[in-house]
């Protein structure tokens, strides 16, 4: 209920540049920016698929492009972003799950996050091992 008269104007402060105001927000923005890496990588994959469908020559062109220093550099940036992305994903993970109880005790958020880290490392090793298995 609000029966407030006119005196109650209220000064509204601007939001411009809000994300620079607090280190927490900067971190959040960095997390959000990693989406660009995911997008770029999705596009690279998509282009690869397109080239693949166009035949060997086209696909080899795509492979050659991947070998340029510029591409390697870009992928290093993507790699770093993916790591940040993965970490931040699991950092926020406990916020997105219902409260969990094991043996009558609340599972701590940090436990969930750490589990996420571990699973990621295992998944990464698994992928690398698989690829190692089919290496040429």
């Amino acid at each position, binding site marked *: 209920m609000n029966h407030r*008269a006119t005196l*109650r104007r209220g000064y509204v402060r601007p939001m411009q540049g809000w994300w620079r105001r607090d280190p927490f927000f900067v971190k959040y923005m960095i997390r959000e920016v990693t989406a660009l890496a995911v997008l770029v990588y999705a596009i690279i994959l998509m282009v690869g698929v397109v080239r693949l469908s166009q035949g060997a020559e086209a696909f080899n062109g795509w492979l050659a492009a991947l070998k340029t220093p510029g591409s390697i550099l870009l992928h290093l940036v993507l790699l770093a972003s993916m790591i940040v992305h993965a970490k931040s994903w699991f950092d926020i993970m406990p916020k997105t799950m219902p409260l969990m109880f094991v043996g009558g005790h609340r599972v701590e958020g940090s436990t969930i996050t750490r589990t996420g880290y571990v699973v990621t490392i295992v998944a990464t090793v698994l992928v690398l091992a698989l690829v190692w298995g089919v290496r040429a």
Partner: protein
Amino acid sequence: METFKADVAIVGAGGAGLRAAIAVAEADPTLSIALISKVYPMRSHTVAAEGGAAAVTQAHDSLEAHFHDTVAGGDWLCEQDVVQYFVGQAHEEMVQMEHWGCPWSRKADGHANVRAFGGMKIERTWFAADKTGFHMLHTLFQTSIKYPSIRRFDEHFCLDLVVDQGRVQGVVAIEIATGEFRLIQAKSVIIATGGAGRVFRENTNGGIVTGDGMAMAFRHGVPLRDMEFVQYHPTCMPVTGLLFTEACRGEGGFLLNKDGYRFLQDYGLGPAEDKPRNKFMELGPRDRLSQAIWHEKQKGRTLSDPRWGSYVHLDLRHLGEKKLRERLPQIYELAVEYLGVDPARQCIPVLPAVHYTMGGIAADGATAAPGVAGLYSAGECSSVGIHGANRLGSNSLTELLVFGKVAGVEAAAFAKSTPHANGDRIMKLALDAQARAAGIVTRMEGTERLATIRKEMAKSMEDGCGIYRTAQTMQATCDKLAELKQRYKNIRLDDKSKGWNTEWLLAIELGYLLDVAEAMAHSALNRRESRGSHQRLDGYEQRDDVNFLKHSLAYYQGADAAPRIDYGPVKITTSQPGTRAYGAAGEEADRKAKEAAHA
């Protein structure tokens, strides 16, 4: 002036005010309710209550036992018929709170749990961790939202009652944000403005606990009853006065002097045992414990520190971190954050501070004020007669519910039987009140600073009306208060604005505080005996049932005069005044009483 019409106006949206509002709404949904509070309801000081609310619950407990604990705890200055009603209604109110969602702590079987509390013979205190008041207040506030007939006036400062021809007709309030005056016309009014702990220096109360409602009723001729009885809580934080709940002791905490000795055994509360035992040692009543700490200080057996002054130790270490975190989480955090003390590893420094006003607006068992028709009061501002000379911990949260409901039901019935009065006459009274209040801001020639007067008042109350009192110190306080009332007329405000002028509101509150302080000091001076929380050192060390088994009644005599102190009878039904004994002596007395009953 904007006017609102309601059937029932309730001043104060703490536990008592909210419970009353819901009671009116449930009694008759067609009645319109104005619920006025100077802060948003959930900021009310009920929020700070930690320990719990008493109601007979266990099979081996009885209403008689709760009745007896309360009456003896109050040193027989209780209205026994009212206490009887109170203990009888308590349990149902707890269940009602449960149905409304209050997160009471539970036993493994899903039933509500109860804990031990000072002065209570059997565990009967319902609790929600150590945030009982917080949970009760939020539950009541949130439940009140369900009722469309409750119209809230949040952040509206109630300035005065409108009383015409012996009947209350409404209230005048200031909308804080705009400084606009509002007349809220009502057929009946419930005052539920809480206590007045802020008249003292070291206290556990919030900044808003300034006795406004007491002063308003007082000024309209309603007597303030038993105002000399002010409770000191024994375990408060040095400097700030913040409370460490009695539940610390209920859970098994010890009080130690500087030698690490459980000194309470020297004050008739022993023997000292490891496990907490109801009505023994640390679970004795608050007045006794505070007095014992005072004596320890006189004997030089308290600890001292330049930051904290002299204090004793509250030892919770043996309870272990796990139990502390589970049962007393808020206490844990308070100690760590405010004092840098880890209660699982260190003793907590504590000292007594003012906590509760036993007295208040005189009210009969139906919460009605004498002399002003349609006026009711409930909660800490009210003296309905259950606390006597000393309140037992956890009785007051229950009181909010039981008598909040009674007030609501009664005020609703009164409103239904009465029409609204003539608006013009009421408006004129309201405009008078407005002129008086507005005058404070516009006054230019003053010289006194608000804070100076407030601090001198609080210091003087502590000096004169503290744990122990003498005629000389009380007289000095009375004189000081008279002086301060004169100087109060000469205050000057820095803030001249209309909207959000909190300095202005503080000035109005200071006026209330001074009136309440005077009622306390004069009632105290005139009570020439020692009873409950009123303890004298000047030849009146004993209880005097012949002359003073009476309620004191302070009557307002105008802005420049001291209040007149009169006395009224105490209702005794089944419990004749006896010795208030605790510890082994108490057990012995109980045994004797039983024998006598059987003989």
